[in-house]
């Protein structure tokens, strides 16, 4: 099963090249839906499949992949959002585009499956490549600049992480006599007092760049702005999760016991990102930038849940990663269509199109409401759980977080109303949503609704093994 999750998208990405140009989209869609079907089979089977192949035994490098409560729904998110992004892409994009999207799915799935730091690192690097090429989809220097910035910043982050990974293996060997890159093994290693600080910093930098978290978000505005909408949806929906996922998968298990003294610092950092993103979103003039900074603010909220070091907070962060993925993915695609239809994404030139674009408007509002955390939709659930974690031992941060929720309502409504409502404008040249666009929007909206009304579908399945994975079980860290 685990193999199938990896090989279906990889294989289909190869098949794309054998298809006629016009069939590339259909082929990619089949590939992504097949991957989704495999994931559904994993979900339905109810187990937590894994595989562990010896690779370079002397160095403790195993090809170790596995599904658990932390990764299960992120894998589902990847499968759903990839299929949705392909659906939302126009067929005129060439084979290379669809190839890279499927390759990105393969790499992301590998990243979420990896249980060995070496394997984790390989997939961590592998996701850089497809995004680099996808950013240059639209010809022109701006896309190239955005792609270069993405690549360089993330490579720098990766280098830090590589140092951290090697250090972990070496210190483990010093302590026990054998090398290991296994996360499950390294979680029980005690790090030298002098090294633990910079090791943590190395991992944090890598994860913060990928998410991105303030102030390491330099690549974000251009990349989100220049990418075609479906690619932005994947960036904000899936790739941003890689960073916070790293915090949960690697950072908490490896450094959990050492986090006590710096917890306040980490929480403060997360809250700065949360507030900064929200206030930035409040004043942006470009619709895509409103959503980009909103997304960044939400990642701060997720980080708050993680650094609360409580079960509720971590569960909320995990749920919010999935929820944020589908909501933001939907919102970015809608904004992309808005730009296509109206020819601009400048808020000062928008407004008054509700009457001409009622369908687009309705889906726009729906996703905007989800993003602003309307109770009944999934954003609320994640925030609720994260707050439940924060009040255990960080009430002050909870207070700031809820105030930001008010700002979130403000910036999202400013975005929606600014773009769609107000005095009517002459009809645009583009049309309202067509049926192929509804084939994207409606299922995704229904999924959002399902997650909002029945979040237990995720939380009940994820919780037990999630706490195991991040090392938050009774007796280790806070329990709540």
């Amino acid at each position: 099963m685990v193999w199938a999750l990896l090989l279906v998208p990889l294989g289909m990405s190869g098949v794309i090249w054998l298809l006629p140009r016009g069939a590339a989209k259909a082929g990619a869609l089949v590939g992504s839906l097949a991957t989704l079907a495999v994931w559904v089979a994993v979900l339905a089977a109810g187990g937590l499949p894994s595989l562990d192949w010896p690779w370079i035994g002397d160095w403790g490098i195993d090809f170790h992949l596995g599904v658990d409560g932390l990764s299960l729904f992120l894998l589902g998110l990847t499968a759903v959002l990839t299929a949705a992004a392909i659906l939302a892409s126009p067929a005129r994009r060439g084979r290379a585009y669809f190839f890279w999207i499927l390759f990105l799915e393969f790499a992301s799935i590998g990243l979420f499956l990896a249980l060995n730091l070496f394997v984790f690192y390989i997939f961590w690097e592998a996701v850089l490549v497809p995004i680099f090429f996808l950013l240059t989809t639209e010809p022109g220097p701006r896309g190239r600049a955005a792609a270069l910035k993405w690549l360089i910043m993330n490579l720098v982050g990766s280098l830090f992480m590589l140092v951290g990974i090697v250090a972990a293996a070496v210190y483990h060997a010093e302590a026990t006599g054998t090398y290991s890159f296994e996360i499950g093994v390294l979680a029980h290693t005690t790090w030298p007092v002098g090294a633990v600080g910079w090791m943590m910093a190395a991992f944090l930098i890598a994860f913060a760049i990928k998410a991105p978290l303030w102030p390491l978000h330099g690549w974000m505005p251009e990349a989100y702005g220049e990418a075609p909408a479906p690619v932005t949806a994947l960036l904000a929906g899936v790739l941003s999760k890689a960073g916070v996922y790293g915090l949960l998968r690697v950072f908490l298990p490896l450094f959990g016991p050492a986090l006590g003294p710096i917890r306040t610092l980490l929480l403060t950092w997360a809250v700065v990102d949360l507030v900064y993103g929200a206030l930035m979103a409040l004043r942006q003039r470009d619709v895509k930038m409103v959503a980009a900074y909103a997304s960044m603010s939400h990642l701060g909220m997720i980080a708050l849940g993680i650094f609360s070091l409580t079960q509720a907070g971590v569960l909320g962060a995990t749920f919010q990663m999935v929820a944020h993925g589908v909501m933001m993915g939907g919102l970015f695609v809608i904004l992309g269509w808005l730009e296509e239809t109206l020819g601009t994404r400048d808020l000062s030139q928008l407004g008054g199109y509700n009457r001409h674009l009622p369908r687009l408007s309705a889906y726009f509002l729906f996703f905007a409401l989800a993003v602003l955390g309307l109770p009944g939709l999934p954003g609320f659930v994640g925030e609720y759980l994260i707050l439940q974690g924060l009040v255990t031992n960080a009430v002050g941060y909870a207070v700031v977080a809820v105030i930001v929720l008010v700002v979130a309502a403000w910036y999202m409504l400013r975005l929606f109303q600014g773009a769609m409502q107000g005095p009517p404008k002459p009809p645009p040249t583009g049309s309202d949503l067509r049926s192929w666009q509804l084939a994207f929007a409606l299922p995704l909206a229904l999924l959002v609704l399902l997650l909002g009304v029945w979040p237990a579908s995720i939380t009940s399945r994820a919780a037990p093994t999630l706490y195991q994975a991040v090392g938050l079980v009774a007796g280790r860290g806070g329990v709540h």
Partner: protein
Amino acid sequence: MQSISAVLWPPLLGAVSIAALGGYLPKRWVGVWASLLILVSFALGVGEVGHLASLAPAARAWSETLFPFVTGFGPAVPWQLFLDPLSGVWLLVITGVGFLIHVYSIGYMGEDPGEARYFAFLNFFIFAMLLLVLAGNLVVLLIGWALVGLASYFLIGFWYERPSAVAAAKKAFVMNTLGDVGILLGLVLLYLRYHTVSYPGLFAAFSHAPVGSPFFEWTAFLLYVGAMAKSAQFPLHMWLADAMEGPTPVSALIHAATMVTAGVYLMVRIYPLLHLAPAIQGLIGDIGAFTAIFAASIAFFQQDIKKVLAYSTLSQLGYMFLGVGVGALAAGVFHFLTHAFFKALLFLAAGSVIHALGGEQDLGRMGGLGSKLPWTMAAFLVGCLAIAGIPPFSGYFSKEAILGQAFNQGHWVLWGVGVLTAGMTAFYMFRAFFLTFTGPVRDAHLHAHAHEAPGVMTVPVVLLAVLAILGGALAEPLDRWLGPTFAAWPGASSAGLQEGPLFTTVLTVGLAVVGAVVAWRLYGVRHLEAKAGIDRAPGRWMLAAWGMDTAWSWAVVEPLKATGEYLRAVVEPAVLGAVGRLGQGVLGWAEDLRPLESGYVRRYGLSILVGVGALLAYYLIRV
């Protein structure tokens, strides 16, 4: 036995079906279909309340768990409903008055191109409001709470091409979000301590808790913030006046009769917690009384008939909170009930006026409409008498119940403010009445075209008028109905209806009569213009709502915007620039490494060879 949830489904079905198919249904049928579903819901509600009534008084509480909402971090929080006599009162008012307003809307919105959208929203509102009052725990309550806010947002901004409506909708939503997060924070704190947020679970826990600990003061305060925002208590009240941008039946249903009383519902619902937080209970009474007199003063010189009614709603909500603050729970609920009748009546009658004048709301352009709209005038008069507290109209009984009890409990200041407000209320309501229906015709053109509303609008108005007249008779049954519930709560010993001393009644009614007579002298006899008194202080300040909008703007909105602007224009470029400089540094190293990438294939070949050799060596050594 049927389930509680049955009442929820007809309005939800209506909202979904009209949203999906409304454009394809023949006009008129949309409204009929929407109204029918609410009637079904009302009938089911009567059945459920009837079932409740058939139980022994002490056993009148009915819980229902649908399915788990969220689990995995402690005891599960389920989708859970709860019906007891208290929620039963709201259930019947929401569906009953809701049905009448739906019917009225068939006439009022019949010409609007967005009729289908309107009824979808209206049905959605009823669903959300029922979810709110039938919730069995605070999480479900919060979901209903936010969804009524959303319905309110939709309907305030119904005419979305009007910038003022769009701005009003946003303001209402954001201010209510402030309330939502108050409740959210309150409920996570309660869950943290008690591992439950269900009412029965919490009440059981509260029964042994000490009075006045900071934990209870804080959680009660946070829930009260939610109530303040939803029920427009000072200083979170401005959105309600702006909400008048919505169609008038919406103002009647959402912004007068039902949604804005959700705060009263919540405060009564969690009274066992409030009882543990005496400071907050006191605060609720104080702010309630202040809101009552403050809003009444703003209503004095309003120029727009709907604004007068909006501020009167604020003021009457203040009375209800005053009641809760002094522990007069039954009186507070009673005032909600009569207010739902007479305020819905006033709004619908005002709606008939506005409809007759083709959308005109300015009191300065009305006058002399009584001859054209006799039924509407009679209905409005009934509403005025009821809200002014003139016996034997319904408002008299409920207002007396609150003020009498405030007096009995020794809350002299609150009582005094309430009495004074009663006189002010009579003045501004009768001012609106005389300006609208009597005196000279101020706009001949509008007057000439005015016509009485069609039957579909008149009949609901007449029914509400009957309820507004006779509603006072419900005092005794309501008290008996709610009594056992309150009796089970610690600290609610004085929650039942009480009579105050005779002189408070005489004083209140006397002041109300004085207010009405003054209004009659000024606007009915001397025919002052609507604009009279607004050109100098304090009238100018009262008209401008004491500048609270400006205060909020200066204190909160503008500073936040300025900070955002500063971040966008100054800080962000600096942050990105710093990253850029790091990038330049990287490029610098790259320059140093450039010789490695010489472009000579032989060098690349060499490095590949070395690499492969190293790998081979590794495997050989290993074997």
